[in-house]
């Protein structure tokens, strides 16, 4: 394994560079995945059947809290990558830890939101609109959940092995994933919630 020290840690080996390009291509596929969900959402948004419409069930408070939590976590994962490039193990771990906690809090609020929807009669089976709403949000939420486990694994590996080209590469790729989920959330916030409440 040749290590090129003139490059940032996450790019320092050939395999690292392959991993990063491969992950960008994967994110391209993820854009298609969420793009399809959004397209289906816009198709089905007015097809509420006997169930409620978006304006009747959306509440701004939990959504704002979720947005705030997730946007902040995107900032902290950026700080984690910065610390990783400065070879500061402690700070890297701290910022990844904060990111994961913020993600966990986001997930908690989202679960509350889901329970609330089901409680007021907007469950998965109610109408085409509620199905696509919960599926779109749920797919994003499932990605966040997966990210929490993934991030925890990386955190443990950094703790055990330090900042190596491998763990540096992993944390950088994790940050790409986390930023991507944030971008998706911005679309959800704007086009699902805000547009729905207008």
């Amino acid at each position, binding site marked *: 394994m040749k290590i090129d020290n003139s490059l940032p840690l996450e790019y320092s080996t050939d395999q690292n560079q392959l991993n990063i390009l491969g992950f960008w291509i994967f994110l391209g596929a993820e854009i298609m995945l969420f*793009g399809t969900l959004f397209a289906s959402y816009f*198709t089905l948004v007015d097809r509420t059947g006997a*169930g409620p419409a978006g304006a009747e069930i959306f509440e701004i408070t939990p959504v704002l809290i979720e947005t705030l939590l997730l946007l902040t976590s995107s900032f902290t994962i950026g700080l984690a990558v910065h610390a990783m490039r400065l070879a500061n193990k402690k700070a890297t771990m701290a910022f990844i830890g904060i990111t994961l906690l913020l993600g966990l809090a986001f997930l908690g609020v989202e679960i509350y939101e889901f329970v609330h929807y089901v409680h007021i009669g907007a469950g998965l089976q109610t109408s085409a609109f509620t199905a696509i709403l919960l599926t779109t949000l749920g797919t994003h939420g499932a990605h966040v959940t997966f990210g929490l486990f993934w991030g925890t694994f990386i955190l443990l590996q950094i703790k055990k092995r330090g900042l190596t080209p491998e763990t540096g590469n992993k944390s950088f790729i994790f940050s790409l994933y986390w930023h991507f989920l944030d971008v998706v959330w911005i679309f959800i916030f704007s086009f699902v919630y805000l547009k729905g409440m207008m």
Partner: protein
Amino acid sequence: MEFFERFAVPHPSPAIYASMVAIGLTVIAIIAGLTYFKKWGYLWREWLTTVDHKRIAIMYLISALLMLFRGGADAILMRAQLAVPDNKMLDAQHYNEIFTTHGVVMIMFMAMPFVFAFMNYLIPLQIGARDVAFPRLNAISFWLFFAGAMLFNISFVVGGSPDAGWTSYFPLAGNDFSTSVGTNYYMIALQISGLGTLMTGINMITTIFKMRAPGMTLMKMPMFTWSSLIANVIIVFAFPVLTVALAMGTMDRLFGTNFFTTSNGGMDMLWANLFWVWGHPEVYILILPAFGLYSEIIATFSGRNLYGYKSMVASMVLISLLSFLVWTHHFFTMGQGALTNSIFSITTMAIAVPTGVKIFNWLFTLWKGKIRFTVPMLYSLGFIPLFTVGGVTGVMLAMSAADYQYHNTMFLVAHFHNTIIPGVVFAMLAGFTYYWPKMFGFMLNEKIGKWTFWMLTVGFVLAFFPMYISGLDGQARRMYTYSEAAGFSMLNMLSFVGAAVMAFGFVLIVYNIYYSVRYSPRNIGANPWNARSLEWATHTPVPEYNFAITPNVASSEALRDVKNGHDLFPGKYEKIHMPNNSGLPFIMGVIFFVWGFSFVFAMWIPLIIATIGIFACMGYRSAEKDHGRYISVKEIEDTETKLRGA
């Protein structure tokens, strides 16, 4: 007993019971054979745990051939049923299941792995790489494909086959009209193998962008690699659409959602749109690598450089863009209105332009060439006129007003078989014959091969050209029988005869393999066809590390340059880094199979356990320390001496 009743086949027939017995006996025979010849260890070490792109390619190839016969058996049953009017051989339900599985098996589990076999084998060799970018992921892709394929195939004997057509249109595919678990199999088996396909797409794009040998710019890549690159880009952008559509379909069937139902706001046309937004690019995923193989073969056996390299690349890029803009032409009659239909008519016809460019490029490559009529070349020469007929009828179908006459008739069936068989299947068989010596170290018999080619071509024309006529006369597709008064009897009998001739052709392929294994000479050298590109520059059989010295490439016809004095392998041996084998991909494939099976039958506890198992495998991989291994200079020297001495 109540628990087991769900696994019963809802429409049993003697044929299905016979298949159950046959499957059982085959499994017992394989297990007994492996035990008797003490091959379990060999199987595990050399194949199930391999991450070598060449071995994975061969596993794809074997799977594709097996599925070819499974899908072919469906085909011959359908043609036999329709050979005479008012036939009672199959009932409507059984016929529905057979045309559904024929379509899915042939597209997803025959053509796709066939294409992947060549991509896996050839891309690293054509760009001078040691392996693909993510060898472990490559093995996972294969095992996911295999798990999906096996899951789909057991539907036939456990729980019932899907019966809503390979397009699985809702509401027909919904719970109200498809009551067996068959359509669950469709949704979940395609989901699993689709995941594998997506990962292959990511893997191959990364490999082509980052692992080319020194000197090989993008515009110096062999044409098959170019075609694969574009096909893989289409995969990455098309397959997530299928993922979402299948997930919604699964939820409609198992969780009672209303995406595609006709009540509570559901919209059945959303499925048709999503399916074809994936489905139309899918046909280009198959045909572009086929075009790439034809380009390699026609250049070799014309003894000339490929004509119009740049226009070949440009036309493929254009096809890939247009492939995403034509999906509505699959349902012109389903209520879009004249403006939408007109737009999609025009985009569809536009695809004929870049395709025409490619046809002329092949013709100009042949022009003044020293043509050798080998088996791969025969397939390629048969392809050009036959595929053109398929393309012309495609333009006929593209005219939305006229499509009201053709839609859902045998005319359409004739059209798409006319593009897929001479287009994809002939390319796969040509590539199979052409690259067989590189893969296995001996040639397939040319004489038997030529017989095969003529049987397949004559059989194809006999089987499918009559359908154009019966379709225009009004014979609908997917009808299990027709009355004598309809007047389709003669044409359908001709089709049956053609199908039978094709079946003999496919059996001849198996005989050819058997014959060549026994009698074909083994000392054929590295380049038996006198080909021109980089994959032929290494030894036969190809050593594990592909090239002892990373090649220094000057053009897309690297081997041709050597004859003109170019030094393809400068420098001396250095130790080579290779990935380690791993059992994890195979284990994940098995767990995914269990996951899928539990999902099909809505058995939630095994489903949850399997899900945890999948994530446990991923966690294990994440924490695993695996830096691969090195092949020493001494080992390389030994291998090279041995291979050169042969």
